[in-house]
Each structure stands twice: as structure tokens, then as C-alpha cells.
């Protein structure tokens, strides 16, 4: 069984260094360690590739943020291939959100947009009313990554039509698996009311 990963690109989004690449399992491999080439990693997101959908979503098996980027453990379905993207930075803008289920890891700004990395631990009802104010009050996109020790049989979803909402409150509703943890990346702006 072999797990390999590769870095295929890099850039900077505001203060964050960003690297992305691919991962490959074969001969029955179900994950391994991604060497992101980064130091203090704040968040990692995975995207399965291939011709078929999946009922076993890949997960990041780490307690992020603040881990060494040389070995980010992921768990996947056997022989799965995919893409990864990792964000590195020194946290300057971290705080608990008003929704009590999430924490903003850090905020970065680039080309007129605000990027927010955060973590969520769902409280028990399977839903999260994610409140990203005051970091954002107009959310244009949001992506979720499950954190777990085994592949996820349910995919968390975004229950909104972006940009949301029209009154520019920075709140978005998510449906998640009860009591599971996630990372999120939100992109948006701080518009007027």
C-alpha cells in the first residue's frame, strides 16, 4: 500500500502562504501524511477526484490549526485520488464567533476580498448558524472540510444561496453531522448595511 502526495502550486492570499497539490492512494491505501511544504498550517481542505461520486468523504485527521505542515494526516477511501489545499500563517485575528459553535482561526485580505478560516464543532442538533460578523457581513462562498479519524459517510452542506443574506449580515446556515468537527473557508466582503 502506498500513499503519495505532491505539491503542484503555491501562492499567497494576503498574509497566508498557500500551497496545493494532489494525493494518491494505491494497492488498498486509505490515506497517509501530506507534506504541504508549509510550517504553521492553519487549515487543510480536500477534494476527491475521479469519475465517480463517493459515499466516503475524505477527512483530515488532525487537530488544526497550528500543526507542522510536513505531515498532515488524512483518511480516505481505499485507492482514492484527490486534491488538497493548505493555508499557513501566523494568527493575528482569531476569536470566538457569536454562534457559540465556531471559532475564527484567522482572517486575511487580498484584492478587495476577505478570507476567513475557521473551525466548527457542531453542538448536537445537526445544524450550525454560522455567524462570521464582524469579520464578514457579506458572504460570497463557503467551503467545509470534515475533521475526523475515519472517512465521513455524510457530507456537510451549505444551506444558503450566496451571496447571503441581502441585508449583509454575516450569517450562514450549515447542515452538519451531529457533534462532528469541521474547518471552513469563507470568502466575502465587509459591505455597508
Amino acid at each position: 500500500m502506498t500513499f503519495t502526495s505532491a505539491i503542484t502550486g503555491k501562492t499567497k492570499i494576503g498574509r497566508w502562504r498557500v500551497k496545493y497539490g494532489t494525493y494518491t492512494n494505491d494497492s488498498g491505501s486509505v490515506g497517509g501524511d501530506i507534506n504541504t511544504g508549509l510550517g504553521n498550517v492553519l487549515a487543510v481542505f480536500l477534494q476527491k477526484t475521479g469519475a465517480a461520486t463517493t459515499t466516503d468523504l475524505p477527512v483530515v485527521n488532525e487537530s488544526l490549526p497550528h500543526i507542522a505542515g510536513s505531515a498532515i494526516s488524512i483518511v480516505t477511501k481505499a485507492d482514492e485520488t484527490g486534491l488538497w489545499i493548505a493555508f499557513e500563517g501566523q494568527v493575528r485575528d482569531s476569536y470566538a464567533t457569536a454562534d457559540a459553535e465556531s471559532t475564527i482561526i484567522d482572517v486575511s485580505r487580498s484584492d478587495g476580498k476577505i478570507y476567513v478560516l475557521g473551525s466548527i464543532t457542531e453542538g448536537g442538533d445537526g445544524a450550525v448558524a454560522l455567524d462570521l460578523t464582524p469579520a464578514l457581513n457579506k458572504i460570497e462562498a463557503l467551503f467545509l472540510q470534515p475533521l475526523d479519524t475515519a472517512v465521513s459517510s455524510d457530507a456537510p452542506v451549505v444551506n444558503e444561496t450566496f451571496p447571503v443574506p441581502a441585508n449583509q449580515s454575516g450569517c450562514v446556515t450549515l447542515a452538519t453531522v451531529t457533534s462532528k468537527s469541521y474547518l471552513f473557508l469563507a470568502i466575502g466582503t465587509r459591505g455597508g448595511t
Partner: protein
Amino acid sequence: MTATFTPAITGISRSSTKRLKWGTYLCAGGSTGGDIDVGARQVEFIMLAIKASSVVATGSSVDETLPAAVKPTIVTPSNQGGYWLALSKP
């Protein structure tokens, strides 16, 4: 009913060296995916998020070997909608 796949670009920005775009996709009439035209010469990375009112059992996939695709093909459960984020060369 004809199967239709409708992607759209809803946001654009730049990093230090790349162009970032994000948007939506919608499968209807039994569609199970299609090509997302991100308006780039070469897509280097793309990830997806699902839009729904409750958790779903089946996740989407990107049917490409990146970096390479101009219009990445995604594969989804029937009639699923969602969001995408792509990084590409400027």
C-alpha cells in the same frame, strides 16, 4: 425533462500570483455533473461544496487530473447543486 448542468461565476479575486474564482453549479433534470468554465487557460486547483438543506450521503468528485483542465468536469449525484472555488494562472 432534459438533463442540464448550469455553472456560473459569482466572484473573482487575485492572490499574489494566481487568479481565484468562485461560483455555483446546478444539476437539473437528472443531470449528474458537467464542465465548469472558470474562464481560465489552465485550472490548477478546484474544490466543491454542496448546497442542500440537510447532510447528503454522496459527495461530488472532480473528474480531472490537475493542473491541466481548462473546463474541469465534475461528477455529482443527480440534481445536486453547490459551489466551487478554483485557482488558475492569471
